[in-house]
């Protein structure tokens, strides 16, 4: 089986400081990988390198494109990379307002991404948008409201609908449940898990919440100071951590 994403020796430096370095892994179709680590460990830098938002200083990020097989997205021409970003990839930001157009209606937010890949029929765009709002549990009668009138949890769900409407194959998520209260988090986790299974998505989720990765991720990568210190099956890394830092991380979680 061809990996969907093949990452080899990716590094990003901010001047003399290490953003992330020497990161390699393969992600296969249908796999969900979590990246955990404390603030400043380089996990968001890495995610942005993988998603083409930052240009890595070294390494290759190969994506299994529909037409040409594995292609290095780092050396790919900008228009091609942008096309991937609109079609096969999705990026869910921690702050929904970074991923949404706040002065466009909810339906418009979902429809815009459809139009970016060529949808033109207003009626069918609106029907698809309505369907997706339903799937992320937003009432159809809110379709013409702007996200500014939505709660934080609703905004996050709208961002997910906007991202998944074009049927991406790989979803990047940066702290998707950060800043939401726990009941809203649970609902979002349930929703994400269902969508990942139904659509056969692969996903890379950056978070510092170990409970979130336990429920969502098959595999885990632990980062510290820009380096990957441990990888493995999620439950194995959490239940039998090998590296000193992972042991500290796991034992520092407060019990409810």
């Amino acid at each position: 089986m061809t990996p969907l994403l093949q990452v080899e020796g990716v590094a990003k430096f901010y001047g003399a400081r290490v953003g992330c370095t020497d990161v390699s892994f393969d992600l296969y179709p249908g796999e969900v990988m979590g990246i955990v680590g404390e603030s400043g460990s380089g996990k968001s830098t890495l995610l942005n390198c993988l998603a083409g938002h930052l240009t890595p200083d070294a390494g290759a990020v190969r994506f299994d494109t529909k037409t040409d097989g594995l292609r290095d997205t780092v050396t790919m021409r900008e228009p091609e990379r942008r096309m991937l970003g609109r079609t096969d990839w999705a990026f869910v930001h921690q702050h929904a307002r970074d991923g949404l157009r706040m002065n466009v209606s909810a339906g418009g937010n979902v429809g815009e991404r459809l139009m970016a890949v060529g949808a033109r029929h207003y009626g069918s765009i609106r029907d698809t948008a309505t369907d997706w709002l339903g799937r992320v549990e937003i009432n159809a009668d809110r379709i013409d409201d702007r996200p500014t009138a939505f709660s934080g949890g609703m905004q996050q769900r709208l961002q997910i609908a906007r991202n998944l409407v074009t049927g991406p194959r790989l979803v990047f998520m940066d702290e998707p449940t950060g800043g939401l209260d726990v009941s809203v988090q649970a609902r979002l986790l349930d929703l994400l898990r269902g969508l990942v299974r139904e659509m056969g998505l692969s996903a890379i989720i950056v978070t510092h919440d170990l409970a979130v990765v336990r429920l969502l991720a098959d595999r885990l990568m632990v980062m510290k100071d820009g380096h990957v210190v441990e990888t493995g099956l999620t439950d194995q890394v959490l239940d039998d951590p090998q590296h000193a830092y992972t042991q500290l991380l796991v034992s520092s979680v407060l019990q409810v």
Partner: protein
Amino acid sequence: MIQVENLSKSFTLHNQGGTVIPVMEGAAFDVAAGECVGLIGASGAGKSTLMRMLYGNYLAASGHIRIGGVDVATAEPREILGLRRETLGYVSQFLRVVPRVSTLDVVAEPLLRTGHALDAAQARARDLLARLNIPERLWGLSPTTFSGGEQQRVNIARGFAYDYPALLLDEPTASLDATNREVVLTLIEDAKARGAAIVGIFHDEAARDRVCDRVIDAAAFTPRSSA
């Protein structure tokens, strides 16, 4: 079906002075299809550690664990995930589920993951929940709010929903009343009859005597230095 060879394990506590605790050495045994093996030994002998290593939950320090063509001790995460989906089931003592997912869906999930149709999966889930005496009015609710015994039975229903060729059972009859205990023992006997290889921990001696073909004392694998 399950072959364990020269398996060892130690824990290194980096944040507690780098203490190394050897917990297992030279573990070796086979479990054939249709056979149920009980792990015995006092608390701390390493029964649960061994079970978790078989499931790939704990990392082996050395040795091999061959289950259905996969060496769990050295396999990639992707291979272990495939093994857990298709071949190896585990009924643990704790139910861990996403909040809000209904009990029926929790039980049907292993079948859906292996490509069974939704209605067939739900029919099987309903049958198991009914056999395990979970009241029908609870099926639509998330098991997170259930009592300990109910959660245990949901866990068992989930573990037996799909016909895994190999099964690990961690105290499947603990905290169950006589009726439900009988149901679980029948499920285990049925699984053996269809050819499943089973490794189980049973503190309930009568249950162990009834379903286990033989027992293995985990204390035999405890390193001398720590014993």
